[in-house]
């Protein structure tokens, strides 16, 4: 028994503590003391005997604080003389500054209406920020066209390298697999009609017209959009953006513009590469599974794909380039000042990037349909 009671004798309850009082040990519950204090009515003073106490850590002062609170509730005097000197000091330290009652009050007890209101205001504010950001990015682009934009060429080339050449391996892998999957799905259906040769049309048109662009877009949103957000977010945390602003350099031109340009230049190139890889993937299935030969597949593909399809695909990819870059940079610039905010910015950049890619694809597809191309 680590906790025993003596008394109350003459109004004094003696609490005897013994053995090891350390976190992780089997310790008595404070309720035992609470019950004791509540069941006995004539206690005026609580005292301690700790002669048999061997070792203790924070678990002891935690219990003592609880006893102290109980005592002050019941107007019982707590005599801490019998306690180890260290424990007495810790209790004094913990009770030196009274509990700040207002410290946690912010954000509590909000009604449903006020929550809806706050969220709406928040949404409108972020929509306004987004529109302002797009406007500023556009102005920066106009400045670039007129040759007045202030950015470092080396940044542009570094970013081009990062989101161009270095993205090739992953774009290859994903595109080949997407071509392969498209061909597999189509192969089974086409075989039923003996129309295996049209696998080339299916894969070729799908890849060139939309899938190549969408797949590169999604890869780049996850790979480069997130990187942009994290880079710019970290710069925000380190006050690097403040340092640019106070120097009169626009972060829009200096940070956002090179990233946007790099992606707009690189995405169409990556898209063409992804198209080729996808067709290659489809070819593997066509040749391996459907017994077509290389020249059949090649000629059929060449006849199936029109230049229109290629232009539409490239248009998609240029739009995605702008969207991914804007999403990444916007979330980076909006980033708060802690490391958790940087993580959120990166996540949010990917989500915004992918959602806007899908929405843009839908809009462009509908537009093409209306225009009949």
């Amino acid at each position, binding site marked *: 028994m680590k906790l025993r009671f003596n008394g109350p004798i003459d109004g004094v309850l003696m609490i005897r503590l013994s053995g090891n009082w350390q976190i992780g040990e089997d310790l008595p519950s404070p309720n035992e003391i609470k019950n004791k204090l509540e069941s006995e009515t004539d206690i005026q003073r609580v005292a301690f005997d700790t002669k048999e106490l061997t070792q203790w850590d924070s678990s002891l002062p935690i219990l003592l604080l609880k006893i102290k609170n109980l005592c002050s509730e019941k107007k019982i005097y707590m005599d801490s003389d019998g306690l180890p000197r260290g424990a007495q000091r810790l209790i004094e330290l913990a009770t030196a500054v009274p509990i700040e009652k207002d410290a946690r009050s912010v954000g509590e007890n909000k009604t449903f209406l006020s929550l809806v209101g706050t969220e709406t205001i928040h949404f409108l504010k972020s929509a306004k920020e987004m529109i302002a950001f797009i406007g500023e990015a556009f102005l920066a682009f106009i400045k670039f066209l007129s040759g007045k934009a202030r950015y470092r060429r080396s940044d542009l080339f570094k970013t081009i390298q990062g989101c161009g050449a270095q993205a090739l391996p992953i774009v290859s892998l994903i595109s080949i697999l997407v071509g392969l999957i498209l061909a597999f799905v189509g192969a089974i259906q086409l075989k039923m009609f003996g129309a295996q040769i049209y696998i080339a049309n299916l894969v070729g048109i799908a890849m060139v017209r939309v899938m190549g662009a969408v797949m590169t877009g999604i890869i780049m949103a996850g790979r480069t959009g997130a990187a942009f957000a994290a880079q710019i977010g970290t710069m925000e945390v380190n006050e690097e953006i*403040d340092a640019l602003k106070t120097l009169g350099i626009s972060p829009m031109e200096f940070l956002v513009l090179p990233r946007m340009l790099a992606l707009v230049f690189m995405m169409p190139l990556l898209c063409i590469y992804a198209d080729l890889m996808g067709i290659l993937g489809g070819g593997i299935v066509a040749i391996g599974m459907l017994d077509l030969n290389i020249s059949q597949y090649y000629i059929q593909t060449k006849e199936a794909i029109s230049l229109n399809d290629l232009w539409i695909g490239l248009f998609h990819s240029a739009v995605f380039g702008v969207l991914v870059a804007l999403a990444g940079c916007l979330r980076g610039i909006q980033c708060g000042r802690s490391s958790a905010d940087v993580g959120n910015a990166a996540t949010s950049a990917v989500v915004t990037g992918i959602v806007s890619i899908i929405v843009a694809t839908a809009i462009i597809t509908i537009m093409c349909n209306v225009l009949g191309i």
Partner: protein
Amino acid sequence: MTTLQQQPMKTDPYIIVRDLTMAYGDYVIMRDLNFTVGRGDIFIIMGGSGCGKSTLMKIMVGLKEPARGQVFYGDLNFWEAFPDDRKHIVKNIGILYQSGALWSSMTLAENVALPLEEYTDLGPNEIRELVSFKLSMVGLAGYEDFYPAEISGGMRKRAGIARAIALDPDILFFDEPSAGLDPVSAKRLDDLILELRNSLGATVVVVTHELASIFAIGNNSVFLDSETRTMTAAGNPQMLLENSQDPKIINFLMRGETEGHIL
């Protein structure tokens, strides 16, 4: 180069803060701030942690808009000035941020060179020479090609100073210069600030709560009190310690050692 000015005049007002109120949204941090920074002063913005010292600096350098009130640089009202005028003021301000805030993707030389490229028409050779000179002024000669991540915290702060003085500014702002530095490095930084003031003739505004620095370099100051959310004193820190009747200020300037006597 700015003309050398060994004995700065203390009476000539340079930065005037008038009726300034700062707030985050509806939450007012400080109100009714009124003080004047004289030309050549080393002016200390002091106060407890989290009282809004750095926010005040951000308003003074144009990073955050005040809720109310004005900041004048000479005759120019900063927050109502035309963009060109404001750019002119900004060009004359050098800032050392709390973390150094060096651009991490650039070498130290590129960091120091950027303000020069932005505001001057100097050729690459002249810029390189100037950069080396500025870096040697802060004791970092030979570190031109290092990236910020490759040097120590104290060196980063000194490199930040080299960048801040790249354009020979009239006004230097330092946000917690000695935070996170050992006492010897902190002392060296204080000496450097004094030296820069004397050699460049610059006006220096330092945000700090380091008592050693406050007394070693400050000749004028303002004390922000987080409880009353306004400034409760202004003037020479040493004089404040000797003459102030406000127990909070005495307590702050004596590192809390008056507790129990006056309070």
